[in-house]
């Protein structure tokens, strides 16, 4: 793998790491498997891209994306809590609805961001070389979001979210409306996913309705790899591990795609197979380790 490819993988790992924080929040903390993310990632990208091409400041467009993602999460969570639709199904419904909505927002399946200012231009203007702009911006955002989520989970509301995922009966009997907590948590999660999508779109210079496919799989893969490699003993550690897991996941994929064995090479279309193998590997490693030690 070239240094250039490694740099790109780390960049990707950091920006999708923001998405993985969102996935960790729903999947692990709230115990709410949420597939909305496959729709809210491109939702964030579409909103941001349309806002920028209409002349809005690229940073403000991120806030809009965040709000849009939050709203999508709220829809899923309301369907689940207020109308008793199974969480998986509720999130799939929101996800497919978002496919149409994203095309509506962009007035087409994609939108290019050529010749307009993005969050990266502001950084290059400060003298950061263009090839490192992505790393700087994504790194800064990932650290900021990490700091925020770790702070937030330590607040009274954050603790209520933790308890809602852990023991809803207990936290209700302590006076917390678990419906409101789930709506807030799933909203926040999708807000972060949309933010991640908006940053990706600004980086690659386009938003595309198909860019969200497989988001949840990548998210879960990163969560599991992070837990296996870096551990999750405390809340802060678990979130940091999720972001690092995302970086490791992207690096592993870049490695696999660059692999040459005689005449054999992986195609980009083998990505799903590679992901599946990575996740299986991460899932069975702790088990294998235990058995080897026991011997």
């Amino acid at each position, binding site marked *: 793998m070239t240094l250039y490819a490694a740099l790109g993988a780390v960049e990707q790992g950091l920006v999708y790491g923001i998405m993985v924080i969102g996935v960790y929040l729903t999947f692990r903390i709230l115990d709410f498997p949420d597939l909305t993310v496959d729709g809210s990632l491109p939702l964030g990208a579409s909103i941001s891209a349309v806002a920028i091409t209409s002349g809005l400041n690229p940073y403000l467009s991120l806030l809009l994306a965040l709000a849009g993602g939050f709203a999508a999460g709220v829809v899923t969570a309301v369907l689940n809590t207020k109308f008793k639709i199974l969480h998986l199904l509720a999130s799939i419904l929101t996800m497919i609805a978002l496919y149409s909505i994203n095309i509506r927002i962009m007035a087409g399946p994609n939108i290019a961001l050529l010749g307009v200012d993005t969050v990266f231009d502001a950084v290059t203007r400060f003298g950061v070389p263009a090839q490192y702009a992505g790393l700087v911006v994504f790194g800064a955002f990932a650290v900021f979001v990490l700091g925020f989520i770790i702070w*937030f989970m*330590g*607040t*009274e*509301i*954050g*603790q*209520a979210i*933790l*308890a809602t995922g*852990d*023991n809803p*009966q*207990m*936290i*209700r*009997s*302590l*006076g*917390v*409306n*678990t419906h409101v907590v789930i709506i807030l948590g799933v909203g926040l999660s999708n807000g972060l996913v949309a933010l991640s999508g908006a940053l990706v779109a600004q980086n690659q210079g386009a938003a595309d309705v198909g860019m969200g496919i497989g988001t949840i799989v990548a998210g879960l893969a990163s969560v599991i790899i992070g837990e296996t490699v870096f551990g999750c003993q405390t809340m802060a550690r678990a979130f940091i591990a999720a972001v690092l897991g995302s970086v490791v996941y992207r690096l592993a994929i870049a490695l696999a795609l660059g692999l040459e064995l005689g005449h054999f090479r992986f195609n980009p279309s083998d990505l799903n197979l590679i992901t599946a193998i990575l996740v299986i590997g991460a899932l069975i490693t702790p088990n294998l380790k235990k058995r080897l030690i026991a011997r």
Partner: protein
Amino acid sequence: MIKLENIVKYFHKGSVNEVFALNDINLKLDEGDFVTVIGSNGAGKSTLLNCIAGGFFPDSGRIFIGAHDVTGWPEHQRAALIARVFQNPLLGTCPSATIEQNMALASLRGQRRGLARGVKAKDRERFREELKQLGLGLENRLLDKVGLLSGGQRQALTMLMATLVKPEVLLLDEHIAALDPKTAGQILNLTQEIVKGRKLTTLMITHNMKHAIGFGNRLLMLHQGRVLLDLRGKEKENLTVKDLLAHFYQAQGEELAMDSLLLN
């Protein structure tokens, strides 16, 4: 003070599985009453407690706690007035949170939660003092996850958490039934101390007749959703397990030959 008026509750109403769970229950507990509740399986004991806590709404009747008519209040709203300890020791605490986090969650029962720190430095000293009462050494383990504690330790912690904010009424749903006899005895003594020390109005469900007689100042026997027996004062003090069994079997319309076996 807590008052139930003509509470009626059916489950699966109108279906073949219809259960008449609570049949016109009228009950008034005075401030500081410690009431033990007994009855066979399906008598409506847990249903009664769940109804008070807001787990579901009665089909008819009204529920008053303190000065409030709480009949239409959802569970989380009633939590401001009610503390509960469940039969399953795993239900009362949050396993992936630490001891101090669990206590902090409970210390906000019924209050608005905001963006302040979940566990505040000034609370820690108080938590430590409270935990010392248990005599389990938990005061030195504030940062341990509750999932690491035993069932008995968790139930003791739950008892303590239930009273961090003084409730109008404390509901104990067979809270020692899942513990080994020694631990159960300890938790029961702790219950007695806490309830008496803080003068809590308490409803305690138990399957153990000796406990039902030995604890509290009032005893309720439920049968098929009705209050069959409501004894207090002298009447309750003079009650024996034998009397209670007599009532019990009279209610069930059956006599077991081996009462003495059950008594041991």
